[in-house]
């Protein structure tokens, strides 16, 4: 890695809510301020602002990034908004990483915000517009279709039972009970999940994350600045991202190749050769319960089709061998699209500094991986963070 070393030195977030009173600008501010405060920094110490926010269609604004900019502290500053659908929350950290690693900026404020509740009659309806305008939209598809089609393929290919998938909801919603920002923490059983209504078979209601409003922010700094700000900076050891073909109906959805490629890009940079051994905590993207398993396999943390077994064996519990989604994830904390991915980065930040309170995984975790997914089953975005400086 030729560029400078970069660390995360501060983090903050709002509650994740079904509907917030605050405007998108206000939500961004409510995340950015605590992030700066946690690093004991002022806005004039921030060199640039990177924002991540997914479809403009939800907040109800064209060029949403411009509207958000002053709520994000970008007044008279270098500013840009990056975007890869649901992958944005983790990708924004990669984007800010190269802002700083390149030498152009010493510090960066990264903010991800989403206010989905603005969209009436229901934010779900806006997802119609992500499908191909000519070959798909006339069929009136909805987001449930594409996830259900993939889940079916995944289950069929590897012989996975619905109860194995339901176990992800149980774990994540239970973990979320310990998260101060969580919208949907709950004590559930597998039976509860399977008894919930079928949305789009094989997807049940309790396997789906909600639409949410919320914002999250982190502060990045180059090495010297990071050490001045914090005794325990969390280093960005590797970043990776990968976009697959638009033609999702020409692909076998059973395995996310785009997550694997993004993961190896990040692992290579981080010097990780055996992910299952060298990663201590994983925060994969879990918009739907099966996705966590799907992504764990793409992240090389479970062999293909084997993630459900490892989950059933307790490997992925908070006190297991490889804690997965100790935060409670999208299923438990909430899913304000881009903010959700950055929430996972925050979780690693707090876990790796021993500051995750009731969610703290036992032992001395040194390295974690956060991953987000987006688009038409297309994008994998991965960040590896750790307590050891990159070489």
């Amino acid at each position: 890695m030729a560029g400078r070393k970069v660390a995360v030195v501060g983090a903050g977030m709002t509650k994740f809510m079904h509907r917030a009173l605050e405007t998108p600008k206000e939500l961004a501010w409510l995340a950015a301020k605590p992030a700066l405060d946690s690093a004991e920094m002022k806005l004039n110490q921030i060199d640039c602002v990177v924002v991540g926010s997914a479809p403009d269609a939800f907040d109800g604004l064209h060029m949403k990034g411009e509207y958000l900019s002053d709520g994000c502290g970008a007044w008279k500053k270098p500013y840009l908004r990056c975007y890869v659908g649901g992958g944005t929350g983790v990708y924004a950290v990669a984007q800010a990483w190269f802002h700083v690693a390149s030498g152009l900026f010493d510090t960066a404020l990264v903010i991800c915000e989403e206010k989905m509740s603005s969209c009436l009659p229901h934010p779900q309806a806006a997802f119609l517009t992500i499908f191909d305008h000519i070959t798909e939209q006339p069929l009136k598809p909805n987001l449930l279709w594409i996830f259900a089609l993939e889940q079916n393929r995944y289950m069929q290919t590897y012989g996975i039972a619905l109860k194995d998938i339901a176990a992800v909801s149980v774990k994540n919603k239970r973990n979320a009970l310990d998260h101060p920002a969580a919208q949907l923490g709950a004590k559930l059983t597998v039976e509860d999940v399977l008894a919930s209504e079928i949305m789009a078979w094989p997807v049940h209601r309790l396997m789906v994350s909600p639409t949410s409003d919320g914002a999250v922010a982190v502060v990045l700094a180059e090495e010297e600045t990071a050490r001045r700000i914090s005794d325990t900076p969390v280093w960005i050891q590797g970043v990776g991202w990968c976009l697959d073909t638009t033609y999702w109906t020409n692909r076998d959805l059973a395995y996310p190749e785009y997550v694997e490629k993004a993961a190896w890009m990040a692992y290579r940079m981080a010097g990780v050769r055996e992910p299952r051994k060298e990663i201590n905590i994983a925060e994969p993207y879990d918009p739907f319960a099966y996705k966590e398993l799907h992504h764990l396999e793409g992240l090389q943390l479970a062999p293909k089709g084997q993630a459900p077994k490892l989950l059933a064996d307790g490997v992925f519990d908070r006190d297991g061998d490889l804690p997965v989604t100790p935060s409670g994830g999208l299923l438990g904390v909430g899913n304000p699209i881009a903010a959700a991915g950055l929430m996972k980065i925050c979780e690693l930040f707090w876990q790796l500094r021993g500051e995750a309170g009731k969610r703290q995984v036992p032992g001395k975790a040194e390295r974690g991986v956060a991953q987000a997914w987006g688009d038409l089953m297309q994008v994998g975005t991965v960040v590896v963070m750790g307590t050891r400086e990159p070489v």
Partner: protein
Amino acid sequence: MSDRVAIIGIGFTSLQPSTPHASFKELMFEAAQKAYHDAGVEPSEIDSFVTCAEDLNEGLSIFDEYTPDQLGAVQKPMHTLTQDGLHGIADALMQIRSGIAELVVVEAHSKASNIKTPEWLLDYALDPLYNRPLGFNPHALAGLEMNVFLHETGIRAEQCAQIAVKNRTNALRNPIAAYPLALTPVNVESSPYVSYPLREAEIAERADGCAVVVLANEKRAHRAQSKPAWVCGVGFANDSATLESRDWVRAEYVRIAAERAYRQAAIQNPRAIHLFEVDDTYAYKELQHLIALGLYSDGAEAGRSVEAGETKPDGKMPVNVSGGVLGMGLTLEASGLYRIVEIVLQLRGQAGMRQLANARIGLAQSWRGVPTTSGAVVILGSE
């Protein structure tokens, strides 16, 4: 390891008011093929791809879903910036300098002809609580700004009209421009007011097109088959998004961006730059942007410069030799890349009828249009 980054290939379609023969994918494929051929690279060699696009310009949500295939970017690192193409150039430069990529492609296009309600689209960009309920045509924001800009700087409306004349006329020598016209000052001053004091003939019209740029680190640039155009400096910045708290006279976003770019390029006096391609979506903006670039100390000097023809192609400080946005057409987020195309052609000596005798360093500047205060600056040099 060297820090230097260069543009080693450009590909672009000619600009037209509409392009019914091709979908956006097909325009992108055309521009990408040309760019990779120009750069002498295969897409498989490219490490990362950047698209500059806004969902609602396309009418598709999560637009990056639709970009990889026609650029050869399948299963590669690719992301979208909801920014102008010059922000994309800055992004590519940062990727290369960070060491994560050696070759990066930046793409942007416009299918503005497919947007049937363009003013409503801009209305949708206004603050929904404080501004939109007033129900005014978004061009009024430019009218308001032009009015106070003229008032504070002493620049006269006729001088702004001359910008429109210059740029539409310049476009006559640009084979890819969409709106070449031998415009006269009388034509401009008799065109109707859209939003006083802004006249219809001073507002750029939309055009369709696609541009693709290939950037490389120094090692790869030295192997390039065309003369590399070195990126000497980049800068980008925002002023306030909120109408009520922004600077209405000065283009602060350009001043801040330019300061960063000049510092990187070690340019003390911007008059050392040989050509400028700046945003002129509204004719007065060219002058506002030139002032923010530090080329004039005040409005009086800017006005005198226009009257003396200094910014014409044969003048001391050629501005928008390509025809600018007024002459070439407004290409949404691709506007900045078409500014880059002109500068690269000039640096290479490939600008045909428009070729300037002395073109070794050029500056491109973009603005994202109303209601934004977002802009970027890129300085390119032949050494």
